[in-house]
């Protein structure tokens, strides 16, 4: 059939470039491998030339694929499944990129694009290491190209094609019997981007994170190149800037994810030890371990074997995390582990095709790798750096085990083990000690010298920072303290220890810039990065353990419904519109929910907060985002008020338009005289008097009007009492009445008729539906800014080191050339 209105060219071009990327990366792999093994320099040159052309083609192809996919999404070509499934017309332009990485194919694409960029940089800069290093990268490019191939061999699916048409995806759907199916309403707009991804962090976090993932291949490729060419230690100086780059970018990407989680998810924090988070943290820990042993090797010749192992593992762990998060094995244990598209086998092969040959090569060459027989001195810097690297590695190993034990164990044994009761604590109670050791080591180790340090020298230098850190910790203990006693005094003690070690790390490393480096900022990258890391640990320790729930339900309204309420966390507070409510340090009022964003899919709730000591007054706008993908209802999106020393963080835990139901409650009529009483479910109502033409704060009738006000008092069982003042009046010769509401008792009261014998008819309705309200959760995160500032400083330290080390590398190269 000839379909009307389809744009097939971008898809055909796109698929062509996918195939071209696949072929050219394969050619590049083979040609670079030949160049690496060539003995005749002419052969080598010829192969290298071919390889460069092939890699250039691959570079061009993957970016063409990316560009075409973006074109399809931004031009809203909904005949393509990717555009139809991940975007829609109303989407803000800045989120169009996010649509690319909402799907699995797009994130592979991002990854392969970064590999291409890094590959081109290395072609220009790697010199004699180009051929073996690029062999590894080209092969990874080949593997990634298969992930977006979308080819069936028999019933085996290889990769998933991002240029699939909707009619290819759902071949049996009846709409495709029509040639003009694109004019049908369900094809004119897409399903939209998941509402939680419509956040600015989601525009920048995935590219940065994937650049981090992609960059772990560079030290890995150098290590493989060294083993392959038997030039075991020749690459470590040249590769150091790339390792630093990888550490900085991956660290930044992970913490951007934490910032997104903090700002747009509602688990009330920046880190939840979710498998998806762990999967990105673990390669970073191992990479940083490798970075330190690499520095040790460059300075002393120790730890080359360990460096090889760490770089092989950090890249393999990136692949493993890809498998974990995309294969669906984590189904029940993660909130956001997405399931694969039937590519588990392919993902598993991807994992082992790098790991096994790399380990085999390392095993074969192990004996040949140079190492120093004499052991490091205990007073040497390299000894403690190695210990630190080891602790980082073990920490990574433990996290990996905890993350992947259950799914794998259950798969093998068929048992039904599940995560521990308190998942976060099961990680925290171990990692707090890792933090203690790492922070402590990072504080003292810079003051040690390579090879050997005299005790007096070291003690003299370290004394002042140690005292200073102890004083700062004591002041903190005295002024604020850590209030986390939920897990017993042992854990609290560990938290204090971690806090001291982190402060120690900050103080000692900052001090080292002056006392150790004489203020030479250019070479202070490592110290700066350590200061940032220490600050991160301080921020994490304080903000996570001193997090307070402000929205404690202390109003006393109807708590009797929950007989076990006293021992439970009552962390959601209901705010009735316009009624100031007590919330710990604040008085809180839900003002309105009238404002929406431009496209109308976000509703903002205006919450007015006034501190009781009148030190501050501000509005919070926690909001609800309308769900996409054909789902009704809303998702909640937090809002925070930022102070220099804390955040007030709020989100809507329940609002009535989250699920609208009909108001089925009916008015009941009562005939009353003055001083009569009627009962309702939670108490009784007394008619005090009937006032003609009332003039008060609520009504302003004049003596010429015809109006009557019933003055009622509502007495609840809890002993609280409320006024209710409905009126009955005549306007334009018609009898009218207006209701009065007692929100706190869910009552609407009307004065509906005047009867004989001084009786009046009072209508009473009990319903929760009439009351505009919002249930809110509010946290205070103290000193969370220390965490964010720490990240920025750490990344700045990495950047400084990259410049310093690559300049150092170039200078050495010049010196070496001059000697020849």
């Amino acid at each position, binding site marked *: 059939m000839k379909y009307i209105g389809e744009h097939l060219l971008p898809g055909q071009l796109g698929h062509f470039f996918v195939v071209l990327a696949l072929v050219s990366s394969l050619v590049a792999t083979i040609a670079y491998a030949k160049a690496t093994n060539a003995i005749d320099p002419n052969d080598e040159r010829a192969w290298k030339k071919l390889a460069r052309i092939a890699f250039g083609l691959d570079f061009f192809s993957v970016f063409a694929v990316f560009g075409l996919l973006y074109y399809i999404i931004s031009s809203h070509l909904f005949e393509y499944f990717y555009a139809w499934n991940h975007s829609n017309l109303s989407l803000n332009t800045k989120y169009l990129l996010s649509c690319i990485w909402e799907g699995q194919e797009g994130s592979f694409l991002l990854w392969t694009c970064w590999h291409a960029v890094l590959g081109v940089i290395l072609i220009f800069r790697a010199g004699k290491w180009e051929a073996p290093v690029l062999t590894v990268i080209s092969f990874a490019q080949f593997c990634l190209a298969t992930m977006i191939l979308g080819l069936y061999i028999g019933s085996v699916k290889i990769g998933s094609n991002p240029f699939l048409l909707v009619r290819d995806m759902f071949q049996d759907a009846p709409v495709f019997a029509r040639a003009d199916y694109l004019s049908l309403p369900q094809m004119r707009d897409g399903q939209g981007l998941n509402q939680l991804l419509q956040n600015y962090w989601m525009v920048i976090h995935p590219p940065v994170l994937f650049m981090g993932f992609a960059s772990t291949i560079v030290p890995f490729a150098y290590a493989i190149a060294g083993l392959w060419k038997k030039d075991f230690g020749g690459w470590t100086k040249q590769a150091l800037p790339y390792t630093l780059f990888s550490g900085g970018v991956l660290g930044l990407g992970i913490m951007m994810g934490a910032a997104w989680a903090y700002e747009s998810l509602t688990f009330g924090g920046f880190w939840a030890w979710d498998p998806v988070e762990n999967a990105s943290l673990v390669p970073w820990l191992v990479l940083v371990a490798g970075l330190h042993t690499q520095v040790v090797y460059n300075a002393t010749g120790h730890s080359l074997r360990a460096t090889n192992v760490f770089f092989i593992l950090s890249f393999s762990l990136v692949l493993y995390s890809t498998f974990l998060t995309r294969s669906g094995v984590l189904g029940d244990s993660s909130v956001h582990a997405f399931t694969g598209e039937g590519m588990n086998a392919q993902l598993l092969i991807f994992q082992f095709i790098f790991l096994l040959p790399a380990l085999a090569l390392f095993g074969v060459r192990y004996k040949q790798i140079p190492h120093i027989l004499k052991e490091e001195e205990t007073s040497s810097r390299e000894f403690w750096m190695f210990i630190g690297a080891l602790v980082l590695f073990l920490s990574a190993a433990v996290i990996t085990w905890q993350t992947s034990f259950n799914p794998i164990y259950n798969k093998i044994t068929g048992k039904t083990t599940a995560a521990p009761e308190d998942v976060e604590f099961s990680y925290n109670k171990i990692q707090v000690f890792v933090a203690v050791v790492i922070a402590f080591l990072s504080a003292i180790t810079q003051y040690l010298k390579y090879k050997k340090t005299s005790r007096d020298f070291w003690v003299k230098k370290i004394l002042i920072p140690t005292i200073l850190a102890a004083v700062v910790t004591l002041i903190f203990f005295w002024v604020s303290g850590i209030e986390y006693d939920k897990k017993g005094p042992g854990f609290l003690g560990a938290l204090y220890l971690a806090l001291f070690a982190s402060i120690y790390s900050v103080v000692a490393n900052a001090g080292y810039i002056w006392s150790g480096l004489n203020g030479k900022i250019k070479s202070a990258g490592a110290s700066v990065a350590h200061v940032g890391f220490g600050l991160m640990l301080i921020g994490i320790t304080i903000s996570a353990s001193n997090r307070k729930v402000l929205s404690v339900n202390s109003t006393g309204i109807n708590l009797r*419904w929950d007989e076990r309420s006293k021992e439970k966390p009552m962390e959601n507070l*209901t705010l009735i519109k316009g009624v100031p409510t007590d919330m710990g340090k604040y008085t809180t009022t839900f003002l309105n929910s009238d404002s929406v964003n431009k496209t109308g899919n976000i509703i903002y709730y205006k919450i007015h907060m006034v501190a009781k000591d009148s030190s501050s007054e501000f509005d919070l706008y926690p909001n609800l985002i309308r769900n996409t993908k054909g789902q009704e209802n809303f998702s909640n999106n937090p809002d925070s008020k930022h102070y220099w020393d804390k955040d007030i963080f709020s989100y809507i835990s*329940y609002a009535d338009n989250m699920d609208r139901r009909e108001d089925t409650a009916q008015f009941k009529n009562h005939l009353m005289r003055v001083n009569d009483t009627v009962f309702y479910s939670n108490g009784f109502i007394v008619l005090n008097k009937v006032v003609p033409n009332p003039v008060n704060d609520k009504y302003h009738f004049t003596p010429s009007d015809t109006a009557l006000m019933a003055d009622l008092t509502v007495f609840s069982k809890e002993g609280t009492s409320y006024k209710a003042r409905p009126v009955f009046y005549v306007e334009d010769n018609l009898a009218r009445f207006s209701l009065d509401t007692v929100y706190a008792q869910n009552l609407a009261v009307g004065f509906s008729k005047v009867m004989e014998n001084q009786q009046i008819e009072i209508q009473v309705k009990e319903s929760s539906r009439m009351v505009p309200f919002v*249930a809110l959760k509010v946290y205070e995160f103290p000193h969370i800014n220390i965490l964010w500032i720490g990240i920025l400083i750490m990344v700045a330290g990495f950047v400084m080191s990259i410049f310093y080390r690559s300049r150092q590398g170039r200078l050495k190269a010049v010196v070496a050339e001059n000697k020849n």
Partner: protein
Amino acid sequence: MKKTHIIILIFIAIAIAVLISFMGDLTTYDTVASAREKEGKYVHLIAKLDKTRPLEYDAVKNPNYLRFTAVDTLGQTTVVVYHNAKPTDFEKSERLVLKGSMKAGEFECKEILMKCPSKYKDDVNANKKNLTAN
């Protein structure tokens, strides 16, 4: 033996101890019947919301009280009490992982993990439904 080797061995010993203690903390996935057998023990109950029974939640009265009936794959039911806000789209969930323990015949739930048709997994199937339903 070298100092490094001794330290490595110590670290490995600590790591193993830590992992063993982690294994001790592990819980299990259960059905209603097996959770009842382990009354008071913290389990992961895999079930669905029983939409034929009433669900009790009134945020105005108390936003921290949700009561509903869950039914597992074997068809057995239990009343579940959850002292927290009703999760968004709760009625639409297809599968629930309820973390908590049985107490006096009722399941005291501490945490609810919802698997909604909208969340990644069944994305495509849900969208396919939209394609034909409209």
